[in-house]
Every structure is written in C-alpha cells, then in structure tokens.
C-alpha cells in the first residue's frame, strides 16, 4: 500500500485519514466561517458549529504532529520548503480561531472587523491547504496553475459544505449552496484533471439538498488521500521509505492510537449528535417554545 510496507504504510494511511477528517469535517466549518457575513443572524451562524469546530481543528494538529512523529523528514521538508505559504496558513488559523472565540464578547464595531477577518482567514486557510496538497503531488514551485486551481477548488467545496451544513442546522444557506455549486463543480473538475483524480467531482452531489453535505465534504476529504495514493512513496521529493521513523516508535504510536482513537471518535460523534438540534436562531427558539406548550 502506498509503495510502503508494514507500519509506515499503516501510518501514511492513518495520516491520510486524519487529514481527510480535518478537510471533510473542518472544511464545512471553514465554509460556515466564509458565510458568516452573508446572514443577518450572525450569532446563529457562528453558534451552529460551536460545540464541534474547535475539535475539528484538532484533527489538523494531530495530523501535523503525527507527521513529525511518523515521518520526521517529510514534516521537516514540506514545512520549511513551503515556508511562506505555511506561515500564511498558520496566521489565518490563528486569526480565525481567535475571531470565533472572541467575537461574541467584543463591541459591535470591533465585531465587524473580526467577522471580516474570520471570512478572509477561512478562505486563506482553505486555499492554502489546497495548494499544499497539490504541491505534495509533484513538488516544484508552490505557485503554479495546478496548486492555485486545487486551492480555489478546495475552498469552493468548503463553501458548499458550509452552506449545506447551515441549511441542515439552522435552516439558512440553501441559496448560497445553490449559487456556489456550479462554480465549485467547474473548479473541482479542473482540479481533478490537474491532480489526476476523478474523486473531486463528488461535489456534483451537492446539487441534491440531502446529499450536499456529504458530497462537498467527501470531495474535500478525498484530496489528501488521492494525492498520497498517487505520489507515495515519493511525496514532494521526499522518499517516505527512508524518512519513516523506526518500527519501535511506530509500534508505540499505533498502540496509543488504537487505545485512544476509538474513544475520541465516539466522543466526537457524541458531541455532533448531542447538539444536532441546537437552537441557533430565534425562529427555532420560538418553535421550541410552541412545542413545549402542546
């Protein structure tokens, strides 16, 4: 698998899956952030994923930290070679995180600025990760037609996922989704050609309201897996066969992951299901009040 054998193959697969979780689940959160300023009830939009979005960013932290542990040379190579791009992404992550956490507590005027910052940083994050993953396929210059296409395609897929998520949770976003899907599909197909992977076309599912979240989420999630499957064992000029950690370390990491991963997946699923019907908007609150009376 992936041109690797044994534990390194397992860990590359795990890394791909964790990246997929981040881009699939966290991608919808990025999309929600992109749409923050589109709706009047901004608080409802930000609260719609309040209990889970921070956890989805932890998937990213786990993916990056586990890369350091499992493939130190690969971690060192892409982070230092894509220095400027990664710095921009990290700044965007910081700004968006701080913005979402603090915006509920600041003045209306400061809130305007923070909401703009949240939108811009969500776009920058999504485009940035698309560029990083397209670069992983062949290396070379970070600013190329392929990387930019992949970046825009990923960001649009996230926007569709975010709109679909809002549609489901708080009942807004249907129009934003319908208007983004055609453009997202065009870019997804172009990026699919550039990345030699047909899977990004899954965005097409987003035309169907009930499948929209799954379609856009999967299209985003598939990117790292498709790139790794195509490029490994040489990812962006790094030979993963040489750069993998020793079996001793990988065994330990596997034991820890096997013990903890099922528990945290269960806890994460619980958090998602527990707040499924989180009343986000006033309409919802009133509807609930009426229900209680019956």
């Amino acid at each position, binding site marked *: 698998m992936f041109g690797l054998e044994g534990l390194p193959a397992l860990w590359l697969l795990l890394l791909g899956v964790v990246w997929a979780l981040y881009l699939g689940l966290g991608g919808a959160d990025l999309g929600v952030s992109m749409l923050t300023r589109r709706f009047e009830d901004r608080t409802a939009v930000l609260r719609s994923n309040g209990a889970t979005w*921070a956890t989805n960013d932890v998937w990213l932290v786990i993916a990056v930290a586990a890369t350091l542990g499992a493939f130190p040379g690969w971690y060192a190579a892409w982070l230092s070679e894509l*220095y400027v791009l990664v710095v921009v992404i990290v700044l965007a992550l910081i700004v968006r995180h701080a913005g979402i956490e603090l915006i509920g507590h600041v003045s209306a005027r400061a809130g305007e600025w923070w909401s703009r910052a949240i939108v811009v940083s969500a776009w920058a994050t999504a485009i940035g990760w698309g560029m990083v993953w397209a670069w992983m396929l062949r290396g070379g210059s970070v600013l190329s037609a392929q990387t930019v296409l992949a970046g825009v395609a990923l960001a649009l897929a996230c926007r569709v996922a975010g709109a679909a998520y809002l549609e489901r949770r708080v009942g807004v976003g249907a129009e934003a989704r319908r208007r983004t899907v055609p453009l997202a599909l065009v870019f997804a197909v172009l990026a699919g050609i550039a990345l030699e992977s047909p899977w990004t076309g899954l965005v097409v599912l987003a035309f169907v309201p009930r499948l929209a979240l799954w379609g856009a989420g999967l299209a985003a999630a598939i990117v790292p897996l498709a790139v790794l499957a195509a490029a490994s064992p040489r990812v962006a000029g790094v030979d993963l066969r040489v750069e993998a950690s020793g079996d001793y370390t990988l065994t330990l990491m596997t034991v820890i992951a096997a013990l903890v991963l099922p528990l945290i997946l269960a806890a994460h699923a619980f958090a998602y299901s527990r707040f499924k019907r989180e009343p986000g908007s006033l309409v919802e609150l009133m509807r609930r009040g009426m229900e209680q009376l019956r």
Partner: protein
Amino acid sequence: MTSLDLARWQFGLTTLLHFAIVGVSIGLVFFVALMQTRYHRTGDERWLRLTKYYGRAMIVVFAVGVVTGLLQTFQFGLNWAGFSRYVGDIFGAPLALEGLAAFFVESVFLGLWIFGAGKLRPRIHLACIWIVSAATMISAYSILVANSWMQHPVGYEIVDGRAQLTDVVAVMFNATIGLTVAHVLFTSLMTGAVIVLGIACVQLKRGVEVSAFGAVARMATVIGLVAALAAAGAGHFQGVLALEQQPMKMAAAEAHYETEAPAGLSLFALGGLSTESVPPFLNVKVPAALSFLNNFSLSSEVRGIEQLQREAEARYGPGDYTPFVALMYWSFRVMVGGGVLLIALFAVGCRLAATGRLERSRWFLRAAMCAMAIPFAAQAGGWLLREGGRQPWVVDGLLRTDVASSDVSVWAVAGSLGAFLAVYAVVFWTAARVLRSELSHGLPAARPAPRATADLALGY
C-alpha cells in the same frame, strides 16, 4: 542578524507567550472544576455563580492558549527542520499521546462543558470539566517528556545521524521528568491560585459580593500556599539533579566561574557575568551552600564555568560551550525571587483568613492584586534558564542549535516573526479587553434570566 538568530527569537518569544497562558489555563481549569465540585457537593449557589464567573475567564484564557499553541505544531518544521529530522522518532510517542489523549479530549469535553450547561446531567457536566483538567495536565506531561529529553537524552541510539528511540520507559519515566512535571504543574496551580485570588481581591476591594469572593479567596490562599511550597520543593531537587546532569547550566545560573571546594551560593552579583571569564566585582555569597546543594556535603567541589568549558572543548572539539551567563544568573533569581514572594503572600493570606480578616485587610487586597504579575515573570525566568542554560546545544551534548535550523532566507523568518508578533499583539490586546469587561460585570446570577421561550409560554 542571521535567519538562525531570528528563528531563535521567534521560538523564544512565541513559546514564552504560549507557556505564560498555558500555566494560567491549567490552574484556572483546576480551580473552576473545584468550584463546580463544591457547588455540586453543597448546593451552595455562591459556588455556582463563582464557577460561571471564573469559567468565563477560563474560556477566554483557554482560547488564547489554543491560538498561541497552533503555531507550536508547525514551528519545529518551519524554522527547525534539522531538529525535527533529528528528534522526530523520539517525539513520536509523546506527541501522539498529547494530540490524541490531551488536545482532542480537551477540545471535545470543553465544548461539551460550555454548550452542555443545563443540557447535560449535572454529574456528567461536572465530569466534563474534570476531564478537561486532567487532559491539560497530560498535555503538559507529554510536552515535558519531549523537553526533558532535550535536557537529558536517554533511551536512544543514533542511526544515520538521527536519534532513534530504543527504550520508551526510560524516555517517559525518569527523575528529570518526574521533578519537571511536578514543578510545572504545581507552579501552574500556584499561578491559577494567584489569578483567582487577585480577581477576587479586586472585587473584595470594591466591596461587592463579599461572602462569595471571600470564600474563593480563602480557598485560593490555602491551595496556593500548598502548591507554591510543593513547586519550590520540586524546583530544589531539579536544581540538585541539574548540578549533576547539566553542570554548565547551574554554573551559569550561579555565575560560578572558578571551581571551588567548598563553593558558595551567590545571592546577588554586579558586573562581570559575561561569557568571558571576568568574575563579577561584587558577589554576595552564602558560604558552602552550593556545595551543600551539590551532594549535601559542606566541602564538596563544584566545577566552575572555566573548567566546564575546558572539559567540553576536550570532549566535543573547539567552540564556545558557555551559555549567556548574565541572562541565566538573573533569570534564576527572578524565578526564585518570584516564588519566594508568592509563598510569603499566600502565607500572610492564610494567616489573615484564619483570623477572619482577609476580606477587610486593604493592604493585602492591594498586594494580592499586584501579585498577579509575579507568576508570569517567574515562569519566564524559569523557562529562560531551562532552555537558555542548555545552549549552545538544542539537544544536550548531541545536537547544536546552529545546525538544527531550516535553510530559510533571513527575510522570510523576519517577515513571519513580525507577522506573528503583530497578530499575537492584537489577540492578546483583544483578549485582555474581553477579560476586563467580562470580569467587571460581577458575579452572574445562578439561574439564567427567563428567556424568550418562558415569556412566550407565560403569555400564551
């Protein structure tokens, strides 16, 4: 300025800021959990209101901790590619533990705690905050495992110029780690106590909600005193261990240039303190005390900087193996001095609380408010000594800092340093304002005011 210098500044500044916040987070989460437990046990609504009040501050501080921590995940690869390649294999297990067992648990259960108030059963809701508290401590442990390996590498072999793990038990459980974790966790609890006490004293000085804030102030002084004494104890034995494992660090911390038997413990020094061997012109010492700390003998020999430098040259080849003595010397004193001041503050607080005068002693309330700055200074001193005293090594005796950095242009590092500091400034400034306004609202009501739903129900 080279990109190496800038990368060091970037790591030092961003990490010090991150650790300052992390210490407060660990402490505050613990105290909030304790307050909620007291409410759960007694049903006394003061504790519920205090839980909510300090919980708000905790959430803001936690958010800043997460935000500043994001950079850490990437920073090793961005600026320290050589270091990442060298230590990745060793760091794999602790990082997996931190990411999965700590970050993830923290974020899931903090989300459940914040959004689950009134929705989850009280016991489950209380369990959530204790799980967050445990996760913050596991997180500290994991990072300190990695950091302790850089101070005292064990359980490894060198394969193809990189360290490879051979004995995880030696890496994750040893005296260096045990003492370091104890020291850091107790200082974090102490920091939490200072912050909780300081905020309570602001309100007590205004004379609002004296019964509730008096109760929490009393709790914080007692726990703070115990934690501060325990932190000092662990720190003492860390120093003794460091005299054996990293003698150069301790010699620099003491500005101890010449090998002596018996050796005195410096209290205060002026002048000198440079890397050249110019001893300070004024140096107030406690005779034989350093020898006593070394191995409980009043006459043992303690090697000085000059001898240690010669020994290092003989072992590793020519080079400068002396850390920045003045910085180490004063960092050490800021840390110890800060700790001593806080022990005194808590001891006085306990005495006042025992005689029932804590709420009314105006000078104590003022002192406790000012004391909120001390743990930050002391912690910064501690980390500067721990990391700076190891220089020129990034992994003691194995990897030099100057060969551990990435091959990145000086402009890229300068730009990122400037950008990160600017963003941190905005985030810290906003968070500080938010904290001020949140805390100035005073204690929230135990039960939320009737909301739209209730109004609607009544009106119908």
